[in-house]
């Protein structure tokens, strides 16, 4: 397969310049692919898919028949980010997470940012992810968001924007690690010559982040990953991370709280556990404190948590910082706490809760992407230019009925990467989710999950909406 007929068109292409010439960082990869015999690339693509299926890293498709397990579609053409671009992303994310963590500490204590009229009180208090139970509490070492996955996009000019902050239980990092394993086998020579930065250190860094939560006096501490169980669509990731870190994978039913201490039920009786990397939403952690009908959580765990007898990552209540309406204020949040300008810009965002913004959105529905502030996974959204009249009217009705629930953003032409379609390459739109760990310092995994919208022309990259993944190569600078 050759790139001779490949046309980047009007989009920003991650591997090619507008005039069709190859970007420097992609040169070795493109040369390799062009030198392969006919069909060799398709065989590589098939064997990558087979090895993912045999690894059994499948997710269950909700609401479908038993036996429909799928691998997340994977395309072997990687997305490549050069060193100088990455350095800016890394600094921008560190800055953003630093500010959001200060925001969380403030919002659950003195609320200075509200008193100083930087962000409206009603906006915070009407946030469904705001947890009143956390008021006045400071988590160990003042860290709230230990693990974050921030979604970035790139527009037609190549500028990176933050599209979404995910500070609750962001998933997908296991695909980053597995995709890399597969791609190393697919293009072994190119890895060395292109100086691709390794991602294998992530589990080790994550473990260090969790260990950072332990009091210095802890001896022989136990750390676990808390999963909702094997029917959860991200179960593979929970089990994979526990295995890579060599720590326990526990479910709610494995745990019990007694005298404000958390224990695991083991074959030798109850055994204490000190830190949980929890992959269960706030609502389900503790039926005594949050949703009383939760079957997944552990009654009494929040009481142990408040007394400092068990630590959790992330802290409950972080969701207030990734509410899509609060998102619009993040540039102001950064300036307020750090006195700096944001390094990574936000996508311009209109908060329908604001009268002026709402009027503007309603007048220009055909130009905007409208999103529900508390939804994720590509649900509850409308892409104005692709919607028909009836759909726009429906969203206009919803916005008027519940303005707090909606935000709107201009439609951005996402950047693209060549992707194998049948027997040739076509550009497909991508986003990027880097992973950030907040422990002793703020660490950004070099790379991240590149999600790709596999349907032609589609801008929606979520796996629930026909999205797939690609490996992400961050290149080392020249010595």
């Amino acid at each position, binding site marked *: 397969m050759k790139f001779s007929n490949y046309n980047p068109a009007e989009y920003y292409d991650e591997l090619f310049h507008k005039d069709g010439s190859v970007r420097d960082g992609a040169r070795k990869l493109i040369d390799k692919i062009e030198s392969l015999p006919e069909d060799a690339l398709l065989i590589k693509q098939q064997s990558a898919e087979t090895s993912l299926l045999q690894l059994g890293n499948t997710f269950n498709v909700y609401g479908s028949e038993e036996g429909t397990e799928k691998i997340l579609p994977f395309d072997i053409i990687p997305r490549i980010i050069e060193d100088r671009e990455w350095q800016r992303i890394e600094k921008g994310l560190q800055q953003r997470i630093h500010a959001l963590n200060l925001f969380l500490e403030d919002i659950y204590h003195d609320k200075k940012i509200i008193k100083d009229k930087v962000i409206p009180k009603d906006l915070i208090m009407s946030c469904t992810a705001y947890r009143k139970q956390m008021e006045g509490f400071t988590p160990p070492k003042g860290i709230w968001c230990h693990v974050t996955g921030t979604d970035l996009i790139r527009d037609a000019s190549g500028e990176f924007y933050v599209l979404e902050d995910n500070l609750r239980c962001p998933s997908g990092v296991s695909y980053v690690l597995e995709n890399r394993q597969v791609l190393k086998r697919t293009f072994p020579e190119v890895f060395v010559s292109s100086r691709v930065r390794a991602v294998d250190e992530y589990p080790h860094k994550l473990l260090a982040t969790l260990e950072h939560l332990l009091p210095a006096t802890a001896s022989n501490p136990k750390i676990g990953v808390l999963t909702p169980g094997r029917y959860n669509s991200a179960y593979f990731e929970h089990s994979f991370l526990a295995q890579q870190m060599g720590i326990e994978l526990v479910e709610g039913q494995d745990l*019990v709280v007694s005298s404000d201490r958390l224990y695991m039920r083991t074959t*030798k009786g109850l055994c204490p556990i000190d830190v949980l990397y929890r992959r269960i939403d706030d609502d389900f952690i503790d039926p005594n404190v949050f949703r009383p009908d939760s079957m997944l959580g552990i009654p009494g765990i929040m009481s142990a948590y408040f007394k400092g007898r068990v630590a959790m990552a992330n802290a409950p209540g972080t969701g207030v910082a990734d509410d899509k309406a609060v998102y619009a204020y993040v540039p102001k949040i950064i300036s307020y706490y750090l006195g700096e300008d944001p390094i990574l810009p936000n996508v311009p965002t209109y908060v329908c809760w604001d009268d002026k913004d709402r009027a503007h959105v309603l007048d220009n529905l055909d130009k905007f992407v409208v999103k529900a502030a508390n939804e994720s996974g590509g649900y509850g959204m409308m892409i104005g230019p692709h919607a028909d009249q009836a759909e726009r009217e429906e969203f206009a009705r919803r916005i008027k009925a519940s303005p707090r629930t909606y935000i709107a953003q201009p439609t951005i032409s996402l950047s693209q990467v060549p992707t194998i379609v049948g027997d040739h390459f076509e550009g497909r739109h991508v986003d990027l989710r880097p992973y950030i760990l907040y422990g002793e310092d703020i660490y950004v995994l070099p790379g991240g999950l590149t999600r790709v919208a596999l349907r032609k022309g589609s801008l929606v990259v979520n796996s629930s909406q026909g999205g797939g993944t690609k490996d992400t190569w961050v290149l080392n600078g020249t010595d």
Partner: protein
Amino acid sequence: MLSRVADSIYWMTRYIERAENIARFINVNLNLSLDMTSGMAGAWQPLVMTTGDHEVFEKRYGMDYSRENVIQFLALDREYGNSIISCVAAARENARSVREIIPSVMWEQINRSYLLLKDAAQNRLASREPHRFFKDITMLSHMFTGLLHTTMSRGEACHFALLGQLLERADKTSRILDVKYFMLLPKPEDVNSPYDVIQWGAVLKSTSGFETYRKQFHRIVPKQVCNFLIFDSNFPRAIRCCLTSAQCALHKITGTPRGTVSNQAEKSLGRLCADLDYSDIDDVISAGMHEYLDDLQTKINLVGLDIREAFFRIPDNLTEQVSVSVQ
């Protein structure tokens, strides 16, 4: 180790062993049906009888105990919980829930087995080339067991894996003997006939014990075959050998020296092993072969229940006892 994890590992190996043994049952019958005159052929019903699930069969296939129906039912019927494919699917679900504990290669082996069976259910390989198919299934299980022994550290998880596998194997060897009982029952005049020798030979082959038996005893004598499969202490599929090894695994889990007991599971398994140590084939014959095997199966089941109570169901109120053991 987490109780839930121990539970899953124990059942993972039990289910794989169960699947392998169904493949072995079917293989014996395939071999037998080739050696039998046409009058003797068609003896597929006893296979279903020994599972104890003939009512389930009849509900789904009526009284038609044809080779195709029985193979479909025992191997590939997803709605029958003890079919090979259901067992492997259950083993896989258990393995999935302990992927972080077992070596990745073991998970991948189970996953591959499952994918192969899923394909087989669609392409009818089992009825087109049954000999090859059931041999393949047995080999998949051998590879799994090989990985268990060569890649899994000899810690608690491994001992639970062995415990599940060995109890299941003891139970299944007793059931293979029972198949023979059912086949003999209708025609007592065949006793000591050439057919009888062929049948007992097939029973030995289905446990991979034919060659070992021949080396030790040379001639195929029914009583001697039963003696070998029940009481031999060296042959790895003989009931006594399985249960003694299971007892070793159990004591490694608890750390209690053999000869002493710390829970009900050790008691009941210890008694069962002592029974086998202090009885012989004459006792079995005087009790009646079927009755003896039936009683043995019940006792193995009880050991399973005691294991569950001792390790997998931890009540919430044991904290005080634990805080002592944690120090």
